[in-house]
C-alpha cells in the first residue's frame, strides 16, 4: 500500500493499522524517518520536500513490486510526505510483514535504501544558513547498490 501525502501521519496509529492487516504474519518490521534538527550546514528550521505528482506514486509502486518479487511479504506499506516540515515531524513510514523476520528486516532495509535514491522527492533545508537543496549522498547510492 502506497500513500503520498502532505498531511502528517501518526506512526503509532499506522503501526496499529498495519498490524491488523497482517494478523497471520510472524514478523512485522517498521521504519519511521523524521526531520532532524541538525544538518551539515547547522540547525535546521524547516525542510521542504518537493515531489513529482504522478511519477512519485508510480515509482513507489514499482519499489513495492520489486520488494514483493524478492521477498515473501504478506503486507507492505510505504507512506511518504511532501510539503513543508519542521524538526521532529514524520517524513516516511515503511512497514513490512512476512512469515519470518529475515525477509521482513531485509525487505524493509531495501525499501528505505531504494526510497532514498529512486523516489522522486527533493529536499530543501532552511536554517540560519538560508535555504539549500540537499545533495544526493554517495552513502545512499552505495546502500542502494548493495541490492543490485
Amino acid at each position: 500500500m502506497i500513500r503520498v501525502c502532505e498531511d502528517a501521519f501518526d506512526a503509532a496509529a499506522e503501526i496499529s493499522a498495519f498490524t491488523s492487516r497482517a494478523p497471520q504474519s510472524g514478523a512485522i518490521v517498521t521504519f519511521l524517518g523524521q526531520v532532524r534538527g541538525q544538518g551539515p550546514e547547522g540547525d535546521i528550521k524547516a525542510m521542504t520536500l518537493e515531489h513529482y505528482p504522478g511519477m512519485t506514486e508510480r515509482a513507489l509502486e514499482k519499489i513495492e513490486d520489486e520488494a514483493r518479487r524478492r521477498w515473501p511479504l504478506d503486507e507492505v506499506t510505504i507512506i511518504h510526505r511532501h510539503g513543508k516540515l519542521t524538526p521532529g515531524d514524520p517524513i516516511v513510514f515503511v512497514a513490512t510483514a512476512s512469515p519470518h523476520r529475515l525477509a521482513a528486516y531485509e525487505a524493509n532495509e531495501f525499501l528505505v535504501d531504494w526510497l532514498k535514491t529512486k523516489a522522486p522527492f527533493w529536499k530543501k533545508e532552511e536554517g540560519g544558513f538560508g535555504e539549500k537543496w540537499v545533495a544526493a549522498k554517495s552513502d545512499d547510492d552505495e546502500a542502494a547498490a548493495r541490492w543490485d
Partner: protein
Amino acid sequence: MTILYFAWLKDRMGKSEEQIALPEGVATLGDLITHLQAGNPQFEAIFSGDAKVLAAVNQDMATPETPVSNADEVAFFPPMTGG
C-alpha cells in the same frame, strides 16, 4: 510537449513548467537536450556544468536514447533525495 523542472533546476530556469512544439528532427531525449541548450542560456549553463541532471519521459526514467514525441511529458531534475 510539456517540460517540467524540479528542485534547483526550477530555481535556475525561473519556471517549473513550459510547453514547446517539438521541432522536426528531434527524435530522442538527447536531441531534445541539444535543442534546448541551443535555445536557452540557463538550460545550456545547467547542462554544461558539473552537476548531475536526470530526466524522465512520461514519468519513466530516461536516457539520451529514449525516443520523444510532441505528446510527451519530459521532466528534468537532480538526483533524488527522498526517504
